[in-house]
């Protein structure tokens, strides 16, 4: 059974509808990728899934329960965690405080120490500078804090919006390695990524979003051989 289901979601911003009936399912323990060109509504979809935007129509269910009317913080407390585009760190707070805020929910507090060890093991660089203000870090380090903060929330589903955007190829690779390690732990993830080649290479399943709807879907390996996907998104 799917852990997260998006049913016929229509959504957008004041006066501009962007999504016109999106259906999507995340299988537990799988890494799913959302592919689509700029402005097609990937971020809008994630924000709607998290409840930051109220959908015009459709529903979101998580672990079999309808969460469409829950606030974003209630969804986070239930285990739906988004690492937002542009990192959105608490720039005036230290790395440690950012991680602490990640573990704000009672659920996450119970496993604070284990998760902290896990994050430091995944990104040893963060451990060296726990007292540094997050706003003074480099882009790559900030993204590590953002992912680490998300992991501190003890996610059942981790959604990552533009993981490697604006990072050097080397740092992007580091983050993708972290992703594959997380995948091995059995974490369910949804990835939105402009580097489609890399995203499809690490994913189990993929959706292609076009014109506000799911245009194509299938196992990531098959989609990466699809002619249309290769032409449009992989540039081959």
């Amino acid at each position, binding site marked *: 059974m799917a852990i997260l289901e998006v049913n016929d979601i229509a959504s957008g911003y004041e006066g501009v509808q962007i999504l016109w009936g999106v259906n999507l399912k995340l299988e537990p323990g799988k890494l799913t990728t959302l592919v689509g060109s700029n402005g097609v509504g990937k971020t809008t979809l994630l924000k709607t899934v*998290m409840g*930051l935007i109220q959908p015009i129509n459709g529903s979101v269910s998580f672990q079999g329960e309808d969460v469409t009317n829950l*606030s*974003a*913080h209630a969804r*986070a*407390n239930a285990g739906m*965690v*988004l690492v*937002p585009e542009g990192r*959105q*760190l*608490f*720039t*005036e*707070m230290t790395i440690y*405080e950012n991680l*602490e*805020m*990640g573990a*704000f*929910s009672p659920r*996450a507090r119970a496993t604070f120490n284990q998760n902290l060890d896990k994050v430091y093991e995944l990104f040893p660089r963060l451990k060296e500078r726990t007292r540094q203000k997050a706003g003074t870090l480099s882009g790559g380090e900030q993204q590590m804090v953002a992912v680490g*903060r998300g992991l501190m*929330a003890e996610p059942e589903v981790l959604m990552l919006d533009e993981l490697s955007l604006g990072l050097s190829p080397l740092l992007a690779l580091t983050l993708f390695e972290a992703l594959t390690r997380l995948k091995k732990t059995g974490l369910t993830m949804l990835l939105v990524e402009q580097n489609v080649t890399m995203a499809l290479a690490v994913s189990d399943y993929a959706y292609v979003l076009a014109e506000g709807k799911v245009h194509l879907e299938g196992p990531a390996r098959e989609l990466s051989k699809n002619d249309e996907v290769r032409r449009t998104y992989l540039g081959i």
Partner: protein
Amino acid sequence: MLDQLISSLTDGLLLGFVYGVAAMGLTLIWGVMSVINLAHGPVIALGMFGTYLLFTHLGVNPYLAMVPVAGAGLIAGLVIYVIAVHRVINAPHLSSLLATFAVNMIIIGVGTAVFSTSPQNIDYSLGSVEVGFLTFPASRLVGAFGAILVTACLYLFLYFTRPGKAIRAVANNRMAAELMGIPSSRVLALSFGLGTMMAAVAGGLIATFFPFTILSGGPYELKSFVICVLGGLGNPLGALVGGLILGGLEGLIPTFMPVSWVPVVEFGLFVLVLLVRPTGLFGAK
């Protein structure tokens, strides 16, 4: 002459600590939710009356009375937030200005009806303190001590407790806070409550220095604006330093020119800082 200067400066600085507390309430609310609370002055006045009523009718020591006054201030802030501010929190600034101004008018209206506008004072003296050639009322010293205590508590709360850190997180990035499971609306209400609490406590402390009416909060609200701008809006420690600067000026200016020049110099400074260093003297964000 020098003795006179030092004595005026000390007087002003001691008062400045209390100004700092009043301004801290205003700056906290601004820093967390970008709302300028125009009901700040009347809440200061309510703090004065709360302390006064507990003292004159129940015989509570005015300094002890500030504990329940602080509690009432917190609750009043939560109520004001829920009723008047929450609905306009995402609207343009003008909406929250008008909403808090409406609260301001309501409190002053009801306060005038209940207390009239004749001055009251708290008839409680701690005597005076002599340090070398300086003589000043002991209440000023206690007031300054109270202000430092309140500032220290606020600092410890914001940096070392979970709800305090949540306030800083929401102030820093409300969307991210919400995504991490922090109930941001409740945190905003708490921040507003704390800001109002600081105003009420400042009012209580001021009431031990001077006579007051329900309208007396107004000048302190204006001073708070000046102080916030001096110290950098949203910066609690800056508010304390700004309060000291303003208090010091108020002490010194009358030794050089007529007292009526005090507001002219204060607001001249206000405009100057806005023009030259709009982020405040201690340049926060």
